[in-house]
């Protein structure tokens, strides 16, 4: 549905996007992650034809995107990171959506606007001037605008940023609902804990380059190769860590916040071996829990490795 081949963009001496190739299938929720300045927004702008790439090609729905051609944007609904708040102060939510419906020639726009506002819980605010809208309401209205023409692709730039938990949940439900309808979603965000809840695949971009791209759990597994057990106990003997690291299946052991953290081979379940060993050392564990690894940890590992690699190259 969205394909880029060797996409590159340079601003002055800074390489914003470097030979980026993406292939997003129809019906996917693709999470596009990266630290600030990694090239996420530049990529989105190039996908929308708002910024011309220096080199590379973009295909939307199988067709190449030509510079200056904006007609393909009708296939896309966009929720930008920042929503202009000072504009058209006199406009109501309905008038605002009517404007974009007119621009997009949406058939039967009146009923579609009413239904979209209702779906986003903005029905009772339809005649309210948009300058009275809160950040969360404005974000929902932005979503309504992106959905008004029933696009096949949704490009969401930081869609949940700045929302309260209730708002985040609503937007997340909406994303999943659109996914269930077969839409392709391209989501750029730095809220990794949220992204991993709904993305089917993620790509991590760092300094303009795509570092890794896979299903969320596969990325976590590939970056963090071990399981971590958190063990709560009354008293941790001084030499326990030394003894633990001598065991063949243990990678690392450390104390954190009065708990013992043990990193083990992830291929097998070592809880029984670990309990037996602790019992042999004269301690009994109170609670043993497998710590879930998060996308955030994987992301931090990847970006830290990239930073280190870059520094090593410089030092060489």
């Amino acid at each position, binding site marked *: 549905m969205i394909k880029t081949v060797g996409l590159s963009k340079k601003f002055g001496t800074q390489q914003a996007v470097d030979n980026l190739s993406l292939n997003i299938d129809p019906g996917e929720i693709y999470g596009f992650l990266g630290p600030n300045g990694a090239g996420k927004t530049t990529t989105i*702008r190039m996908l*929308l034809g*708002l*910024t*011309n790439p220096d080199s590379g090609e973009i295909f939307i729905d199988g067709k190449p995107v030509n*510079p*200056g*051609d*904006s*007609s*393909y*944007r*009708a296939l*896309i609904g*966009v929720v*930008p990171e*920042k*929503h*202009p*708040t*000072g*504009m*058209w102060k*006199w406009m109501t939510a309905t008038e605002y959506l009517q*404007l*974009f419906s*007119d*621009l*997009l*020639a949406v058939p039967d726009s009146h009923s579609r606007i009413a239904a979209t506002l209702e779906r986003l819980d903005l029905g009772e605010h339809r005649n309210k001037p948009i300058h009275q809208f809160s950040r969360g309401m404005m974000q929902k209205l932005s979503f309504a605008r992106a959905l008004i023409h029933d696009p096949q692709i949704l490009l969401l730039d930081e869609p949940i940023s700045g929302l309260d938990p209730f708002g985040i949940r609503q937007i997340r439900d909406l994303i999943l609902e659109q996914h269930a309808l077969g839409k392709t979603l391209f989501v750029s965000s730095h809220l990794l804990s949220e992204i991993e809840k709904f993305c089917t695949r993620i790509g991590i971009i760092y300094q303009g380059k795509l570092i890794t791209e896979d299903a969320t759990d596969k990325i976590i597994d590939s970056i963090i190769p071990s399981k971590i057990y958190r063990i709560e106990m009354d008293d941790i003997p001084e030499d326990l860590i030394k003894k633990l690291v001598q065991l063949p299946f243990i990678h690392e052991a450390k104390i954190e916040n009065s708990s013992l953290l043990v990193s083990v081979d992830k291929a097998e379940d070592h809880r029984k071996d670990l309990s037996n060993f602790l019992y042999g050392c004269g301690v009994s564990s109170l609670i043993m829990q497998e710590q879930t690894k998060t996308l955030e940890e994987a992301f931090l590992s990847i970006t830290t490795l990239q930073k280190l690699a870059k520094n090593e190259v410089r030092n060489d």
Partner: protein
Amino acid sequence: MIDKRSTRVLTKLHCKETFLNPSYYIAIVVSSLLGYLPIRAFLQSIGPQGFSPADSPLFANITGALERLFSPVMVQKLFAEGPFLFALFWALTPMLLYVLISSIITFQQHKDQGVIELIRFGPSNSRSYILSLFLKDLIAIYIYSIYVTLFFLAVSRFNNLLLGPAFIQALFAFLLATLVLCAYAKLSMVATDSSIGSIFLFLAILAVFLAVQLGTYSIILEQIRTIASLLSLVIQWISPFYYMTIIQTGFELASWLHIVGGILCFVVLTGIVGFISLWLETRKERRL
């Protein structure tokens, strides 16, 4: 490429935005009152013994200054049909400036706030946006021109003054000049990245055209007229005021060649300036 639907929708939006703004009506009142000033001064000059400019200090000052700057013949021509010709320029110029400058400010504000980018998601493009602003400016000025004409017509009826063909001819020429001035305002708007810069550029363009045009009529110093005439050889081709004089000459001589030629020149010049503005904006857009 310009998208017709987007341009229509955005023109409607800009018009709504303008007509819902109280400052448009304030500008109408202020401009029409400014236009009424010379009429009132003229009326005060009419006494029981007939027309006597000395009876109204304001009228005497206006005509005196114009005579010193240009020539008594020109002033005579200007007031041949009464005060309405002079009042027309007095009433239209501030409104024209208000409409064009407010458009420049709106454009820069919308650009800074990301509104134009949002419209481009629409999908539209900034060319359609600029063209829609151009059309809105014309509509706002033409609506005001109708109002001013009706207002002056009412004043002429109440005071038994003549609102003759010279007024209609001048209005016609002015409205054509508005086309080019709107295009120059759009060029200034896209040529710089700030409201202040755009306004200064537009006022500078306007000042140069006016200075060169009026300089050629000046009788204060021979040198001024010579320099203005020399500059005019080049600048006149891109100046709306030059084509206004062609049309006026056409009306005076009843020459259709001058009138039709003048209209064509206005349309072509508007097209060229408009095209440069859109080309410049497209170039800027792609460079991003």
